[in-house]
């Protein structure tokens, strides 16, 4: 049992961090907190992949020694280097992570400009009331149907903001 816990400790770490991020994404009302939770979630996934690439017992980084020494494919001891494949996959994932972060921040700024708040419950309340929308934007026909009103406002918003 002890062996099992110690031998799999990278999985426990990844699961714990992922739970933290997941909880933050669901329970926190603040949009920036949600973005932070998403960041933690993504790093946890990346940690999982990287930990599968590690090898026990004094492995080196995947940069081959005697670099300029010609075509020596025979001299490479594979067990001596870490597995480079998950590194490559996760390297691209990290950069994509920042790209998604940029888009998320952009959407957050647009939401703030529209509703003057980044708390989720207040945004939902304002959407339900329809009060924050300027009068001329609200379609008169759908005043009573809040769902229709909501889609309508969103549609109008997109028209105005973008």
């Amino acid at each position, binding site marked *: 049992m002890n062996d099992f816990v110690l031998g799999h400790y990278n999985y426990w770490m990844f699961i714990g961090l992922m739970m933290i991020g997941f909880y933050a994404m669901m329970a926190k009302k603040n949009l920036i907190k949600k973005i932070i939770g998403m960041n933690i979630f993504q790093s946890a996934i990346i940690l999982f992949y990287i930990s599968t690439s590690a090898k026990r017992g004094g492995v080196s980084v995947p*940069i081959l020694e005697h670099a300029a020494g010609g075509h020596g494919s025979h001299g490479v001891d594979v067990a001596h280097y870490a597995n480079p494949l998950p590194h490559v996959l996760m390297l691209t994932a*990290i*950069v994509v992570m*920042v790209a998604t972060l940029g888009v998320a921040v*952009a959407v957050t*700024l647009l939401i703030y*400009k529209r509703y003057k708040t980044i708390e989720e419950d207040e945004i939902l309340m304002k959407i339900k009331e329809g009060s924050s929308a300027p009068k001329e934007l609200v379609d008169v026909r759908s005043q009573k149907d809040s769902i229709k009103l909501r889609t309508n406002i969103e549609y109008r918003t997109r028209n105005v903001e973008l």
Partner: protein
Amino acid sequence: MIRESQDVIVKTLARLLVPFIVIYALYVVMHGHHSPGGGFQGGVILAASFVLLAISQGLDKIRQRLSEKTAGILSSLGVLIYAGIGLLCLLLGGKYLDYGKLSKLLPVEPAQARSLGILGVEIGVALAVMAVMCLIVFTIFSFDEDSGGDE
């Protein structure tokens, strides 16, 4: 909107540090073969140098060095370099992104040609990443003034 910093220490040290940061970023890009690094990291460090300049000198002065239009052109140029190298290999009779065929153009053997192809690709990636990161940061930091100014 980032205004020019009032602090003389920040201004002077940013002025002194930025050329070295840029050289370090280029070193990271060019030496991706022998050491950790490559296009993504180098491009992001380049973007960070621009952010440091923006903090110290204000966003308006940075727009003279790297306007948003130039950044857009550079980002598409980076992707174009990448795809163009792949297409060049295709035209030289290999498969797409098969850099070994570049040895027909360059006076080196195929393994070295692949190394050079990797270098070209990394430069393209660095350009694209640098321009896109600068674009995102500048756009976010000039958001209000950009869209609320003339309303």
